[in-house]
């Protein structure tokens, strides 16, 4: 009753009105939801289980849901420096690429979004209009010309091709602009009266206020780059420069499919994103859902 102003609480009041059947039904529903969710996520569990199996157990029928005997063979095989599939190297490449790309996205997008949100200048609407319009351009159209541009820059088969070209994030500009517009303007006004210049206002006042949005954008950019597949597959050819997704696909191409190795590789590729997701899912999910509401 004290929460009458709280909208979600009101929605929750609805089922309460039918009190008698409630308890048993509620428990039943959670049990059913739990079972469905468990089945839904079971492939991921099986991936992790298989990565700790021996080569033979990984392909035995009936499949076992416990890795008995438990072994780290698969990890030792793919992580050893002598391996023809340098998964550790790929991990390092992916991490460097995703971190730098995400930093580049956050820096350039937030810098660009600020004048589009707060300043009046000639050409503002044209610039913003063009940026938003490219959100509708299917990325495939960029693949062939960007390959040639990257080749002219001498970036083929090197990590910079994965870091720079994809950093021009129209979504990032749009997302940050929405956030800046929603910020109250008084602090900036006060700072301006005190004679602070725009860059100072941006770095000292606006950016600290925008931390949640910056974190969300950084995470989304990191995930996108970490999981990007088509571009690295075609732009990187040597084993030592591959990112994890591109490298894993070459692992699969081997003549005898080693599922134990593949699952271990897939687990290694999943660890950072799953860790990020478990601890920071609030930012990721809110970022995704907000993109929908505002779009």
């Amino acid at each position, binding site marked *: 009753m004290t929460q009458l102003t709280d909208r979600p609480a009101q929605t929750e009041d609805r089922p309460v009105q039918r009190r008698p059947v409630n308890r048993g039904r509620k428990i039943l529903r959670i049990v059913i939801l739990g079972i469905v969710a468990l089945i839904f996520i079971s492939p991921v569990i099986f991936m992790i289980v298989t990565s700790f199996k021996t080569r033979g157990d990984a392909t035995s029928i009936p499949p076992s849901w416990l890795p008995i005997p438990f072994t780290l063979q698969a990890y030792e095989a793919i992580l050893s420096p002598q391996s023809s599939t340098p998964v550790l190297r790929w991990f390092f490449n992916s991490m460097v690429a995703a971190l730098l790309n995400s930093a580049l996205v956050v820096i350039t997008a937030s810098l660009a979004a*600020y004048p589009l949100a707060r300043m009046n200048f000639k050409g503002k609407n044209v610039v913003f209009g063009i940026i938003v319009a490219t959100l509708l351009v299917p*990325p495939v159209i960029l*693949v062939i010309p960007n*390959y040639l541009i990257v080749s002219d820059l001498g970036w083929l088969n090197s990590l910079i091709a994965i870091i720079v070209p994809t950093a021009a994030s129209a979504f990032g500009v749009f997302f940050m602009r929405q956030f800046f517009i929603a910020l109250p303007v008084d602090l900036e006004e006060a700072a301006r009266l005190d004679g602070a210049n725009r860059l100072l206002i941006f770095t000292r006042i606006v950016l600290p206020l925008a931390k949640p949005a910056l974190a969300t954008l950084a995470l989304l950019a990191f995930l996108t780059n970490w999981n990007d597949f088509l571009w690295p597959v075609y732009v990187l050819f040597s084993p030592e420069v591959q990112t994890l997704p591109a490298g894993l696909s070459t692992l699969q191409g081997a003549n005898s499919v080693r599922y134990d190795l593949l699952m271990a590789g897939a687990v290694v590729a999943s660890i950072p*994103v799953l860790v990020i997701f478990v601890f920071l*899912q609030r930012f990721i999910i809110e970022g995704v859902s907000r993109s929908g509401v505002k779009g």
Partner: protein
Amino acid sequence: MKSTTEVGVLPKERAPQPRVKAGRSVREQGKATPWLFLAPYLVLFIGFVLLPIVFGAWISLHTWDYTMPVHPFVGLDNYIELMQPGSIAFENFWNSMKATGIFTLFSVPLLLTIPLAVALLMAKNFPGRNFFRAVYFAPYVLGVAVVAILWRYLLDSNIGLVNYYLGLLGLPDDIAWTTSTPAAWVALIGVTVWWTLGFNAVIYLAALQDIPAELYEAARMDGANGWNQFIHVTLPGLRPVLIFVTMITLIASANMFGQSYLMTQGGPGRETRTAIYQIAETGLRNFQMGSAAAMSYVLTLFLMVLSIILFWLFREKKESRK
């Protein structure tokens, strides 16, 4: 609440007057200032987005093998070849367009409805709700490479989990999920739904929570049952987000690549080789970049026409309601 928003607005509205009169007002910024802020982004944006869009059109008018020193201008020949039945480019391209079409046709409706059902379940308050929401979203963060490699293992016709459990249920246990159609389509579509349903569900969920509870209350007072509330309150409330979700799902489906590349290698034959796959192979493996660029423009044209039709459809509905 009210006061903060008004404080935020007031200075903004007052400021223009002194600014116009006193040229040295603090609101004034140098003409270059906004462009200096924009510059780093614009360098990337022009170099890797705008320029490529124009450059791609230019490439498509040439026979462009990047390993060759000369790229002869051929006018619209690459496009004409794509429209000429019997040519190799025609066969390859339209087969791949058909594959993309089949995939889109089946995956989009599933990715619009199943996530909505999940979101409706999650919209109600119950203990562990955020945990369930995270579970359904989790596959999305794994990325296409991990997901496709994982499912190729689960769908292995001999040792895969899926066939094993189908056998336990008394169903056929020797389905060649990745090497025969239509099973390969079921696999590709099913895996894609599993992978991305959480993404759409989360967007729906946010929109559901924005529908005012008073609307449901009013509907109940009018004697509307659950289904009526869904039709007359939930769906209209979701309309703007429905457009958004339809568009991004459509574009994502039309851009399908990794699932096919990793799970079926485009097979059997080239039946599941999608348009993107075909464009990438033509341009970046066989280096027929002119032809590949032409293909990407034709595909883009298709997508744009489809988007316009969709926008128009949604708008029609909206107006007829009012």
